């Protein structure tokens, strides 16, 4: 599987994504500067976590104006896989590649802790290696992860099996405990928890590996 990680100014989990991808795929991803207008030939594009543009104005809003976003949209339109983690998820909603928006945590505080998730959907290239209903533990680290969408959109997401991860103990007020969703074509996933931080036993867990293993199986 060939992959790329987009480097936005202050999207500070780019190296974490790079490390995890290198470890999991055995191949270093391309690191793509946000001002570039073309993507290298890859199967997967990762929008990493962090605070692109300091999260000023709105999380993800300014990153969405980057040159590279056009190429990412084209890649997604052609069915290429896109994974948005945390800030990356926020960018994808700003870009309209995923529905809804991520608002300030209901408790108004940034929260960094491991959370328990239920894998709701295994019919996707991101989650096929998990079991449906499986409980996994992945850390969150965000101040604005409170997923919002209108009721119709939420119903649609549920009806189409696009709610992929749900919090077992909702930490941020997200509608219907949603932690991660797919787009209609199921090739774009956004999630608030950080799977790239749990692919290594030394870091207290390996539950994030499933996403990368699923992608490797689906895309190589």
């Amino acid at each position, binding site marked *: 599987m060939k992959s790329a990680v987009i480097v936005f100014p202050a999207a500070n989990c780019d190296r974490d994504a790079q490390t995890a991808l290198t470890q999991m795929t055995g191949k270093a991803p391309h690191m793509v500067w946000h001002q570039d207008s073309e993507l290298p030939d890859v199967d997967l594009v990762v929008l990493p976590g962090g605070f692109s543009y300091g999260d000023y104005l709105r999380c993800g809003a300014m990153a969405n104006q980057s040159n590279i976003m056009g190429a990412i949209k084209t890649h997604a339109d052609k069915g290429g896989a896109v994974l948005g983690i945390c800030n990356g998820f926020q960018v994808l909603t700003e870009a309209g590649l995923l529905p809804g928006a991520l*608002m300030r945590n209901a408790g108004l505080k940034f929260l960094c802790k491991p959370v328990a998730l239920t894998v709701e959907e295994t019919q996707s290239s991101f989650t096929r290696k998990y079991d449906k209903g499986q409980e996994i533990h992945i850390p969150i680290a965000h101040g604005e992860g409170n997923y*919002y969408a209108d009721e119709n959109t939420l119903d649609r997401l549920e009806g189409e099996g696009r709610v992929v991860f749900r919090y077992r103990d909702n930490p941020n007020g997200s509608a219907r405990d949603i932690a991660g969703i797919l787009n209609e074509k199921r090739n774009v996933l956004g999630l608030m928890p950080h799977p790239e931080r749990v692919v290594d036993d030394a870091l207290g867990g390996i539950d994030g590996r499933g996403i990368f293993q699923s992608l490797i199986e689906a895309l190589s």
Partner: protein
Amino acid sequence: MKARVFITLKNGVLDPQGKAIGHALNGLGFGSVGEVRQGKVIDLELSGSDAEAAKADIKAMCEKLLANTVIEKYEIELK
């Protein structure tokens, strides 16, 4: 020219920050305070003097960047 843009959450979108402020104000003894909503205000300096053109420009800025119209609405005020 100067302009002010207000960006507030759409009605019906829950505003936890506003709620917390309302709660805190009540707690401080300001019992008369009912609903509270928080939004952003963006003050812009603009070159040029055509008000209509400026308004159109600002509208475009809001749609493109300043507001997320999934959850927010905006108002523009020229000064």
